[in-house]
């Protein structure tokens, strides 16, 4: 187990390095940060001087190694746009994103699994077929349109829920949460629904497909032959086995909820790192963009680790080596 995790960590370091290299190469092409740093009146000589001071004229590899070296020490430089240290900026925005992502993930998982199981167990039921078809709307609409639509209906027309931001937040030391205030809770509803819809559909379909597969297995037939109750068969036998393959995909999907909140955060002006990234892209704020990508790589590594550990917990075949193989 330990060896396995260490192996994965080793691979992860490679992944992180690759991600930073790729992001670094990319940023050389996305635009000129100097243009957005200087004022309308700045002369060309002034711009050139700034470029020199920022080290933008150094050879590529030097810039990269400097970046990696600083990143290892947790220093991602100063945001060109907001002039504050990037690490601090990201840490201050992280709670918002994580709270939104976790809420969405919870919605997606709970509804995804419940609906997936329901539609799998009632394959020919017209209501289940309706859920299946309706769920496709979640993947047939661009996120921004869903978000704007929800704002229009629930914030502007009905005025039930706030249209932007995360309401009043409570400072718990280094973590600012919106879960402890009424406005905070009300504010998270629309963005969380918007963000979860896509993953909900995916998880629901995945659970359904896997469940149907599991229900065809011999051990389910054998469980029926043992006279077990329907509940025991469907939930303790079939569902548990369904969840094993669902963990991987769902894990990766949840990772992309955290990292994919770009559009949702922008539409709802949710003060997370996704909207931070998009505002940074607009002005080529390279330090923030680089740090964000590193963060995404980091999330990937963490999620993968969690998925691997969950696998160990859920599946005894991995946890306990077989004493006998074959017949």
């Amino acid at each position: 187990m330990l060896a396995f995790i260490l192996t994965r960590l080793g691979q992860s370091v490679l992944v992180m390095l690759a991600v930073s290299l790729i992001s670094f190469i990319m940023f050389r092409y996305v635009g000129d940060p100097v243009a957005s740093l200087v004022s309308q009146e700045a002369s060309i000589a002034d711009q050139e001087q700034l470029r020199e001071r920022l080290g933008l004229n150094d050879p590529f590899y030097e810039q990269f190694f400097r970046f990696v070296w600083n990143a290892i020490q947790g220093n991602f430089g100063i945001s060109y746009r907001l002039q504050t240290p990037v690490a601090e900026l990201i840490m201050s925005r992280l709670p918002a994103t994580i709270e939104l992502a976790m809420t969405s993930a919870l919605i997606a998982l709970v509804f995804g699994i419940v609906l997936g199981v329901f539609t799998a167990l009632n394959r020919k039921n017209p209501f289940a077929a309706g859920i299946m078809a309706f769920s496709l709307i979640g993947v047939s609409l661009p996120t921004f349109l869903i978000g704007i639509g929800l704002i229009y209906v629930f914030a502007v027309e009905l005025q039930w829920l706030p249209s932007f931001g995360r309401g009043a937040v409570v400072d718990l030391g280094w973590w600012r949460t919106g879960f402890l205030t009424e406005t905070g809770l009300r504010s998270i509803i629309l963005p969380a629904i918007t963000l979860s819809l896509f993953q909900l559909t995916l998880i629901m379909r995945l659970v359904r497909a896997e469940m149907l597969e599991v229900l065809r297995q011999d051990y389910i037939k054998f469980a029926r032959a043992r006279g077990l109750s329907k509940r025991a068969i469907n939930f303790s036998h079939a569902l548990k086995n369904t969840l094993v393959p669902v963990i991987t995909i769902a894990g990766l999907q949840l990772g992309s909820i955290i990292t994919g909140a770009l559009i949702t955060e922008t539409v709802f002006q949710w003060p997370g790192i996704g909207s931070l990234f998009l505002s940074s892209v607009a002005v080529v704020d390279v330090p923030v963009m680089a740090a964000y990508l590193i963060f995404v790589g980091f999330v990937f590594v963490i999620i993968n680790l969690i998925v691997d550990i969950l696998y160990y917990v859920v599946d005894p075949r991995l946890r306990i080596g077989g004493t006998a193989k074959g017949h």
Partner: protein
Amino acid sequence: MTDITPSAPKGRIGKIIDSDVFYSYRTSPVAIIASIIATILVLGALFAPWIAPYDPFNPRTLNLMNGFTPPMSESFTGNFFLFGSDHQGRDVFSAILYGSRVSLMVGLSAIMFAMVLGVSLGLIAGYRGGLTDTVIMRIADVQLSFPSILIALLIFGVARGIIPPSQQESMAIFVLIFAIGLSDWAQFARTVRGTTMVEKQKDYVSAARILGVKPIFILIRHILPNVVGPVLVIATIGLALAIIAEATLSFLGVGVPPTQPSLGTLIRIGQQFLFSGEWWILFYPAVTLILLALSVNLLGDWLRDALNPRLR
């Protein structure tokens, strides 16, 4: 179970009509409706120059004063716009027809690109195994955990930096295809790798290897035909996703030029007028996009079940 001797009618068409897939199509009203809608939209896009009353991509024919004409009413210059006109005086109906064309073109090309890339890498990873497999699948995993929009955005940014500015607009559509395609290959690779790993263990592959058939030919001639089913399903659903990704990228301001809008660009433009009362500029393109994506998704859904022999 016993194989039932089919009393199937002969002849190619007869065989198709009699096939299980077609049977499942005939008995699925959802699939029929979805395919009718998809066909109408695809034909509309394909024959846009003949169907569309105006050419919205030709700026010379536009009159700015026709802007914001409501649906079914007469414009400043006396033109009639079925779905109204947008802020540039473009006929929304014609723009939708031409826009679907762009969207479908981008979506189809992107998914083809993703398919070719993903299938090739998946075949190689699955067949070679070992380090090759680890590297390719690790990249695919990383790729999957990065939001595709983010990847497309970065590629778009890089392309902006590499391509000379004067060619950027003409290249934009290719960059878009590349960007969306590149963010979509991993799904194909994963599935194909899995199937390949199963197929390569089968004895028909061994039989070919005994003869000294080169791996590349084994992959192409033997294994590839056996992965077509799942690939087709992913491609269909991927097509819907690609069309939506294009729309999202347009929303973020990267995408095709506004003078040659796709459905996504039309929606991006239209959503500016959501509060100002010109609802038709958003409404019709959005409905078209939803219908297109939904019908393609429903078809993919049906295809998945139809091609799964165990669900029949």
